[in-house]
């Protein structure tokens, strides 16, 4: 096992364990914190996959802004483990079984996928660097870029219309 593999397994284990903790913590605040840990692990993966820019964006957007907002809302509602009523036991079990079977099916199907032996590392890539992405974004992706601003506008309208107290 070389260092990359060790790192991969470490980050993977971290991501999966934290993700499980997100689902199973009783306290919403803990869930948020675990989720932030997932994002860190995923950012680590990004770096290993030569997507440095995305790693940073992931931290800024998800861990830095979105999760803070979640935490903020949870604080706002003064939520803790007691306040959440538990779901019907059977429904919980059914949900877990359904999710588990989906996982099984997808793994069973994709384990023989056509790309299974392709490697994802070796040569060093430059595509994930910010100047490369920036160039592509501002030449080839102008249309989606500008259109996404429309999305922001509608989100803004939504925040104001729904969030504002009448």
């Amino acid at each position, binding site marked *: 096992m070389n260092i990359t593999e060790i790192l991969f397994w470490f980050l*993977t284990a971290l*991501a*999966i364990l934290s*993700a499980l903790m*997100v*689902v199973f913590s009783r306290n*919403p605040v803990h869930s948020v914190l675990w989720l932030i840990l*997932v994002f860190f692990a*995923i950012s680590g*993966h*990004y770096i290993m*996959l*030569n*997507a440095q820019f*995305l790693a940073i*964006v*992931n931290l800024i*957007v*998800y861990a830095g*802004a*979105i999760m803070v*907002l*979640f935490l903020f*809302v949870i604080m706002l*509602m003064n*939520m803790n483990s007691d306040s*959440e*009523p538990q*779901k019907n036991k059977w*429904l*919980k079990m059914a949900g*877990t079984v*359904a999710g588990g079977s989906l*996982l099984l099916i*997808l*793994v069973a199907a*994709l384990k023989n*996928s056509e*790309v*299974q*032996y*392709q*490697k*994802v*590392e070796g*040569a060093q*890539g430059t*595509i*994930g660097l910010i100047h490369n*992405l920036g160039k*592509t*974004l501002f030449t080839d*992706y102008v249309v989606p870029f500008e259109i*996404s601003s429309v999305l*922001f506008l*509608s*989100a803004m309208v939504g*925040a104001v219309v*729904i*969030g504002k107290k009448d």
Partner: protein
Amino acid sequence: MPINYYIFLAITLFCIGIVGVLTRRNAIIIFMCIELMLNAVNILLVAFSKMHYLAAATANPATNVGSEAQLFVFFIMVVAAAEVTVGLAIIVMMYRNIHSVDINFLNRLKH
């Protein structure tokens, strides 16, 4: 590292997200689990991006293949942020009205 490992990692995270959506009742947690699903997709896309890059780079080291997937991930993050804004606004609106974020609460009111 074969791509398969990344596929399985992504699918696992994705399914954990689904299980979360199915088993929790707190709207905020459900929403967080959906974010988890989106992140699973992101990591899969980035892994595929690298994979296609490597496949193309043997022929042409200066290739730009794979950057489209990274930009896609970028857009997913951006759109997710917009979605979070609206989603949290809706959750808070409901909280203001019934002081609960239990997704079955309203249902109980009905019956």
